[in-house]
């Protein structure tokens, strides 16, 4: 059910080019989420940028802001960058990008360069889907919702407080619930503790 949607940002001033890339990507039928930014500064302000898997960017827009671009690239270290090239650029500038597309490339070639990145990532996506709690996590959860502090849980299970904290992080990631009172309800609903154990 939870099919991964890939976020793509296109940083380009020409509407024709933007619409062109947009329709080439949408025609693939893949559930890409495509966003537009007009320039580097706007990209820096897009909240979605931190979730961007791929950014198409016209090298013209970074030419005089290389410093800003490098710091952005550092911030978004999981993001892949594709240069949209339609005039001559110095090879050194182009070497910043992970991939280059040229304005006269066929749609197939452009799609191939996009899909290349996403197929690289796919194996990792699959095992992240495991949402059930491990036995150890259930032990931690039981003690947590019956009112024990991290230190007490650590003592009872004979593990370090640090390990307890990392279990708790995993539990919250898998369930989507962070607060102890919320987790208590989760534990009751999933019969991890009985409703009779629940006290306010």
């Amino acid at each position: 059910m939870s099919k991964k949607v890939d976020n793509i940002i296109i940083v380009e001033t020409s509407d024709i080019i933007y619409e062109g890339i947009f329709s080439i990507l949408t025609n693939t039928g893949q559930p890409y989420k495509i966003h537009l930014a007009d320039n580097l500064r706007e990209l820096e302000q897009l909240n979605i940028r931190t979730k961007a898997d791929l950014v198409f960017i016209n090298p013209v827009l970074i030419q005089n802001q290389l410093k800003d671009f490098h710091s952005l690239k550092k911030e978004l270290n999981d993001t892949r960058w594709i240069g949209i090239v339609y005039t001559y650029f110095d090879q050194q500038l182009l070497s910043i990008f992970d991939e280059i597309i040229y304005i006269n490339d066929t749609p197939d070639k452009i799609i191939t360069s996009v899909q290349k990145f996403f197929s690289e990532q796919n194996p990792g996506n699959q095992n992240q889907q495991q949402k059930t709690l491990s036995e150890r996590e259930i032990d931690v959860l039981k003690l947590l919702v019956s009112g024990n502090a991290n230190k007490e849980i650590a003592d009872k299970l004979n593990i370090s407080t640090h390990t307890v904290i990392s279990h708790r992080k995993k539990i919250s990631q898998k369930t989507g619930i962070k607060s102890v009172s919320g987790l208590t309800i989760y534990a009751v609903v999933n019969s991890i503790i009985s409703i009779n154990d629940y006290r306010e």
Partner: protein
Amino acid sequence: MFIVSEMKISDVIIENPYLILMLEHLGINLEVHDKTIEQICNESNISTELFLTIANLFNGFKPLPITEYTSNDIQTIIKYLKNSHQYYMEEKYPQIQDYFEKINKINDHAEIIMIGKFFDKYFLEVTEHLDYENDVVFPYVLDLNNLLTHKNSDKAVSSYSVTEYKKHHDDIEEKLTDLNNLLIKYLPQKNDQQIRRKLLFCLFELEYDLKIHSQIEETILIPLVEKMEHLAKKRK
């Protein structure tokens, strides 16, 4: 869409209707005709820079810090925050409470009763937090503002500092997310789909507004007040 001052306010609202709520918090009436943002701001005595910062927060952009302290901006921000408190307390939370009661009538699972209690407790925490802002933080900011604008003001400003506020500023949003997840993923359902949907829509609306609310406090108000504290110290 990144909002700029020449845009017609009606276009911007049609693109993101949540901005209606922003206007309401700022005390700007609808029936905006074909006015641009700049015109509306001038008429309402709100700085365009501040308006754009908040509006773009609503549109998902990260705010540009307001660099310059002005008394007017501070008054606008406090007004916005106070109005949104009123919206939570008098409109949103009673609405949510009402939905919970309705669900309880149809669905008597023990877990549903638990989540009702979860909400009640959460609501108490929220009330405490909003009261604290209304009673301590906002008056302090306004006093400080007064001190900086009226040269001869001899009204003593409490020795409070915004650093304390930073500490106190705990996350109301976290439990709201928990609530959504419990209602969507885990809680047993029994003929309550429609009310549950209404409840969830209501919670999403609240979540959206609260998120912007705390962004305004953390990224706009607190840095400005730090500037004001610095200015006030220099004057002594």
